[in-house]
């Protein structure tokens, strides 16, 4: 069986970016990955902080959403614009 290797771009914003000390990651995986899996691959033992929101390709998603090769996954705190 041929396994596809997926490459996922990860982005962090605002206070989360400062807390974890980075603004971007690149993760790859050989199986189906959810948004939560992406976080774990990129941040190992660091738990995803509470209240953090996630987006895939600039649309809001739940943490159990599956991602596809080439997707951009973003994590950020509650928004405070306007």
């Amino acid at each position: 069986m041929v396994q596809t290797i997926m490459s996922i771009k990860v982005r962090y914003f605002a206070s989360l970016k400062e807390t974890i000390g980075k603004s971007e990651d690149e993760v790859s995986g050989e199986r189906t990955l959810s948004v939560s899996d992406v976080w774990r691959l990129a941040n190992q033992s660091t738990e995803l902080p509470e209240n953090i929101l996630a987006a895939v390709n600039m649309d809001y998603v739940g943490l159990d959403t599956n991602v596809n090769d080439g997707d951009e996954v973003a994590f950020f705190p509650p928004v405070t614009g306007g």
Partner: protein
Amino acid sequence: MQIRICPEEFDPFHEIQAFQNTALDKAGKYGATSIFVGTMRDLNDDKDVEVMTLEHYEGMTEKQLGIFVSEAQQQWQILDALILHRVGKILPDQTIVLVVVWASHRGDAFDACRYIIEALKSKAPFWKKEKLTSKEERWVTKNTDGYLQKNN
């Protein structure tokens, strides 16, 4: 329709006039314009604020604002909309956000404008960091609920 992220200070009224005079091809058709201007205050949560920095997720911001306008168009009869939002360093009394909705009738204009600013406040990926006059810096962690203002 125009959605613009502005790294520089802008004058909301100049922008509305410019849009009405050029992009908005509906003279004589709109009877109602509902406008919201959000302005930086020099006080937040009882602390004096000196300057604010607005970060955003470029690309997602524009995409989400476009979605809010589409959602408004599905719910109300509107003729056009204009959204401008500042990013970067902002000083007290400067404009943060401008939302304008043109419609034939006022109910649609008001409700759609309100809908867009509430959606923007709760879902557009902007984040504010304040620098207080005490030099302390802090991220704003939560937007107030515009509909329940009196209960906050």
